[in-house]
């Protein structure tokens, strides 16, 4: 799966998890930029991504994610 495809699917997942249609995903986007991206929603986001892409992240990988760019890189590595 290439990067644009991953971004397209992630956009749908973000809309679903944050209940918000207007999130513009960029590699730099991080928790401080999105209303409601707290630690709990972060877990829900990760769980939804794992399910959608049929992959599993390790605990340390989840801890290291700092923005959408990291997330996309990790998904590419795994899928």
């Amino acid at each position, binding site marked *: 799966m290439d990067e644009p495809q991953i971004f397209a699917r992630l956009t749908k997942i973000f809309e*679903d998890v944050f*209940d918000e249609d207007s999130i513009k995903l960029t590699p730099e986007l991080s928790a401080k930029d999105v209303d409601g991206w707290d630690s*709990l929603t972060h*877990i*829900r986001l990760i*769980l939804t991504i794992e399910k959608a892409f049929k992959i599993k992240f390790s*605990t340390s990988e989840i801890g290291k994610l700092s923005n959408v760019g990291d997330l996309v890189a990790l998904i590419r590595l795994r899928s």
Partner: protein
Amino acid sequence: MNALYTELQWLPRVPQEFSARLKALGDLAGSLGSEVQALALPALDLNQLTKLAKAMDKARAEGKLLTPLTPFRLAVLSNSTIDLIVPALVASAARHGIALEVIQPTYDQVVQEALTPDSKVNSSKPDAVLFALDYRALPLKPSLGDAEASSATVQGVIGYLHMLRDGIQSHTNAVCIFQTFAPPVETLLGSLDRALPGTLRSLIDGINRELTEFVLGSGDVLLDVAGLAETVGLADWHNLQLWNLGKFSFSDELIPFYADHVARTLAAIRGKSRKALILDLDNTVWGGVIGDDGLEGIQIAQGDARGEAHLAVQRLALDLRQRGIVLAVCSKNTDEVAREPFEKHPEMLLKLDHIAVFQANWSDKATNIQAIGEELSLGLDAMVFLDDNPVERGLVRKLLPQVAVPELPEEPAYYARTLAAGGYFEATAFAMEDIKRAGFYQDNAKRANLQKQVGGVADYLASLDMTITFQPFDATGRARIVQLINKSNQYNLTTRRYTNPEVAAAEADPSVFTLQVRLSDVFGDNGMISVIICRPMQPDVWGIDTWLMSCRVLGRKVEQMVLREILRHARAVGVQRLVASYFPTDRNKLVVDHYGKLGFTKILEEASGATHWEFSLDGTEPDPVPMNIIRIGFPNP
């Protein structure tokens, strides 16, 4: 994981327009309850449940009403993170007709919250408290091979749970809901862990056994989480990574499953469990089409794989009937043809005797289900309709959204399991009378027939040779009293719901007059059929707080006899006047003129339709009805 349970496969799939309808919710005028319930009905995943709960919170904050959903305040005490679960509970409760508000104290403050009189939980006056504890919350000291020490550990844990319960009960009237504990997967010695005293597995087995016994005896409510975990498998239940990440006590994928079980338990507490199972016949109760394949062609024999699948449906239906669920048939068939297997096929477990109403004709199934409801005096929201045909399921869901219609898988072997997984008949207590209930409804059909044959109603009533038994509330009757108070919708003047502790309080209060009424007749014992609570208003005035009756004795003039009994006791303590109210709901139109018919005078009618009545004790009391009267247990007979 097994998709039946992770994806709630007995529920319809989420429709395309879910998001659009959710967004439009805020723009709807009037009360949102019905639309919210419709949105909650399909198999929502965790994100969808969360979004629906958020929309409900928003609607509430804007002052919108969620009627006709029943309000319920649930406090959740937990040693784990429940923040992902709470929105799922709210949305799942809407699926079961409940407008749930969750009181969630600070993380891991279980003991403080239960024992402190003015804690967040105790001061919020919850209807119920859910102890959502997992085994990691318990003081478990492994004591390998030491039976005495392990028994002390088990007793210590039970004592701890007792203490929590006593804390809540001394400060609130809340029902306590206890969860059994899902043991961890990991063993120490292997298989021996189950047998050896003091291993984690054997300690948790012991705790679960003691806990279930204590809940059965105390009138609290049980949520068998250990059973849920067994159903899906312990290895899938316990997600260790999630526990480490944020103290989530079980897998996120099972949150919708767990939340639906909490919701059906709350619905059962509020008397919303279903009471009747309506069965399609062709390809549901047997394999094949009786009209086409004939008696020899349908598949229902033992030893035939397809036939055994349908026999399993019959066996489940029969078992449900034995615990009090009424069975009916709704089939597109010629009546005689449809009855033939019941009468002549030797392998059929279900017989015509088991079926209270048999509707086989060529009219649409929605019309027939309505007719079944009328015949049984049961509301559509008391019905479950089982049909292999997705078109029929869709039609009934569309025309009669109150009827529960489980989705069925392609494979008939899983029909029975899917029906059971839906939990439509959840019970929080068991009264011996439940066992007889299916028979009661069937006797009613016989009585209705008799009524048609006998000329006048009075003659009919006299021919029934009725015996009515009056008793004040007592411990023996309490489970059934609580059940009637929480289940009766139609013949219920005030629809006040009381918990077991509240009923016990009324029982113990000498100033409160209570009545449990039983009725038997020539067809058998109807069991407890009416419940009355009168509370003193002024020294010489009683207010009728609760008057309800089971609909299966409608038209027997029981209410006249009950009023005569109330008057008798009121007079004995010098009461001059009874005051009473009728509060309308969408289910109790039946009794709008109950007090008028009994000779009460209307003193006030509110815009809401609520009416207030009074009865002076020197007025005319209703005529007696030919019944034998038995009185038991009154202090002044």
